[in-house]
């Protein structure tokens, strides 16, 4: 056998299923199925290649496998097939990361989800990011917790409220020992237990029309708005206009009253529509929808109206998790988040399916066009 100049150690990715046709005599069709992203790739090769492929275990070098089989194969051809499968994410060099290390499963996942960037680099983008979050209620806090678990290590949290007994229903970092504490600090303590390397800046303030944004958001990788007081539409327009000019993305999360399980709106300068077009779209779409609600004022001191807004924490978790799928894909350098830009989905609680609305820009909008 000739001397090996190409002798890699390779393995089939754990996340790829391999199906081999056994029907034809001199050719084997092999289908690779990425189980996480459900993408398929088929190749037609000589049946001996399928045996080599089956043997790739991430331990022995290629030459050793070939010697075991005693095959004479065209090495150049073999090399081109193997390299094709590496580029297409079917084969990989065994990872040097310890499989039990803290983020190994996530890095493994990113290798299927983010293309054009090595998975450890994609993960590092998550770690290095700075997320500024307005509002740390049920949805905002769940986003922060999910991102902190994923490794995001810089946060700025903005919220002026304190935890109450009622926070037990929907705040994931609630603890009976933290009642009366400012929400931002209780959440900071919670995520410090998740990741002791996290750095959290707490701003115990309400976002108001006159709030100066520069010191809060200028170093953000992404800003996330979940503050529903004052009205989320108003705070989002203020944030969205400022951030667009600074080329910083804004994610306005769903999951608030009347939209208990909705997806969020992602405003990315140069990619999505702008916040004003989104706001305008809904004012036009809902121009004839002027609903009246009856608020029964049985106890004016209570913040909640009986018979009014419902929502269990499990529903808030939907909007938060969906937001984090989009945010992590974006932060890590992926492409998939683009598929739902400028669309809002409402998860129908009674049907378990999502109804999407396509949000279009105002004709001739100067902001979106830039």
């Amino acid at each position, binding site marked *: 056998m000739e001397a090996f100049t190409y002798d890699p150690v390779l393995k089939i990715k754990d996340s790829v299923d391999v199906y081999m046709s056994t029907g034809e005599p001199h050719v084997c069709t092999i289908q690779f199925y990425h189980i996480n992203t459900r993408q398929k790739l088929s190749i037609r090769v000589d049946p001996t290649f399928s045996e080599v492929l089956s043997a790739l275990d991430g331990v022995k070098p290629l030459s050793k496998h070939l010697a075991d089989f005693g095959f004479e194969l065209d090495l150049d051809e073999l090399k081109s097939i193997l390299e094709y499968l590496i580029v297409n994410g079917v084969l990989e060099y065994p990872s040097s990361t310890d499989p039990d290390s803290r983020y190994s499963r996530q890095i493994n996942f*990113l290798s299927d989800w983010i293309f054009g960037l090595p998975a450890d680099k994609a993960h590092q983008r998550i770690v290095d990011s700075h997320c500024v979050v307005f509002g740390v209620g049920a949805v905002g806090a769940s986003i922060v917790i999910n991102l902190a678990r994923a490794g995001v290590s810089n946060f700025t949290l903005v919220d002026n409220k304190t935890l109450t007994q009622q926070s037990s229903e929907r705040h994931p970092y609630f603890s009976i020992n933290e009642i009366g504490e400012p929400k931002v600090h209780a959440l900071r303590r919670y995520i410090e237990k998740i990741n002791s390397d996290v750095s959290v800046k707490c701003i115990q303030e309400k976002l108001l029309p006159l709030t100066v944004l520069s010191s809060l958001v200028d170093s953000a990788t992404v800003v996330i708005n979940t503050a529903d007081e004052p009205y989320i539409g108003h705070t989002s327009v203020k944030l969205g206009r400022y951030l667009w000019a600074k080329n910083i993305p804004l994610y306005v999360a769903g999951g608030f009253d009347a939209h208990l399980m909705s997806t969020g709106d992602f405003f990315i300068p140069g990619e999505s529509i702008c916040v004003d077009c989104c706001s305008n779209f809904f004012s036009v779409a809902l121009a004839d929808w002027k609903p009246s*609600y009856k608020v029964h004022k049985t106890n004016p001191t209570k913040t909640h109206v009986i018979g009014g807004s419902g929502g269990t924490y499990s529903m808030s978790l939907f909007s938060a998790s969906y937001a984090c799928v989009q945010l992590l894909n974006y932060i890590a350098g992926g492409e998939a988040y683009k598929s739902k830009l400028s669309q809002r989905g409402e998860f129908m609680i009674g049907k378990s399916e999502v109804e999407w609305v396509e949000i279009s820009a105002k004709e001739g909008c100067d902001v979106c066009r830039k």
Partner: protein
Amino acid sequence: MSVENKVFRLRSCIAIVHLGQIVEFFDSNLRVGFSIEQSYPEIIGLLHRFDGSLTVSSISALYPEILIHELCALALFLQEKYVLIEVNEPYSQSDVDSRPRLINTLESYFHSTSEVKKAISQGSKASVLIIGLGAVGSWVLHCLIKAGVQNITVMDDDVVEASNLHRQDLFFEADVGKPKATTARDSIRHSYGIEIKAICKKMESVEDLGSLPNTQNLIINCADFPSVDKTSRLVSDFCLKYKTPHIIGGGYNLHLTLIGQVVIPGLTACFHCFDQVLTPTNAADLFGVKKLNRKTRKIGSIGPVCGVSASITATEAIKVIFGAPLQFLAVVNKRVEFNLSNFDFGAFTVSRNTVCKYCSNDTI
């Protein structure tokens, strides 16, 4: 009690729009609605009179132009459509103070406050078993606790590993190396003062389930070892025997984006009804094809995808636990799948096989 003497309340989450001859009703909690033809110009003002304290007859006295039996018929119709709720028992002040959102959520599923009260009381005490505290199980547990479910048993024989922290709820850096079940129990006790039961054991046989407390109201399978198929079969066998509602969870290793079905034995498609449909489909796909066998695969995973799965699973579980009528369950006779390349959802539906040898009424 005659309808005239009943008290109704227009639910505050109902949006009403009156345009010409049409009145539209929209439940902003469930986001479902309907419309009726109605030309009475004061209809909204009239409906607002249903404030939870006036009887139908006392409202009728304010509107002499409306016949009492017409008003009764309207009230009954809107009660049937979940717009009005009959106020026949007051909520306890402690429930109003501590779980207003649960009350409001449940009002979409019931016709009277007494039914909602009963649902809260039964749901809070319901016995629930969660098998497996991975990325889905840990979040489902947390969701149920926050909904006020108190009588929960969790079963898992694993210890917390550093590589779990990126996607599993309730576990922290300081917990690495500790058993998951007792760690989750301690975490819930610390935050909520609620005592759940922890079993540090693997589910290996139907007998393992029979020997546990709390198996009567709902069992949620979030365990994937040795395989989802194996654990789901065990849970199915046990639950069909005792007619216990159960959920074949999702979000596991190899099935990250799948959200499994709720099974109400005798009423909805069971694990085997699905299996009977899926197996021939798989066999047809695989004709003349062999699947390469692979050992010990550690598939990648990411927290929020499991969170999506846990959210839908727990939202369904809460409906089952608090006794929402069957028509409100959304993952029965159906599996939901989340697509990670276009971020959309799809579903695979399977009708109940009425002659299924595992779940037909003759068998169970």
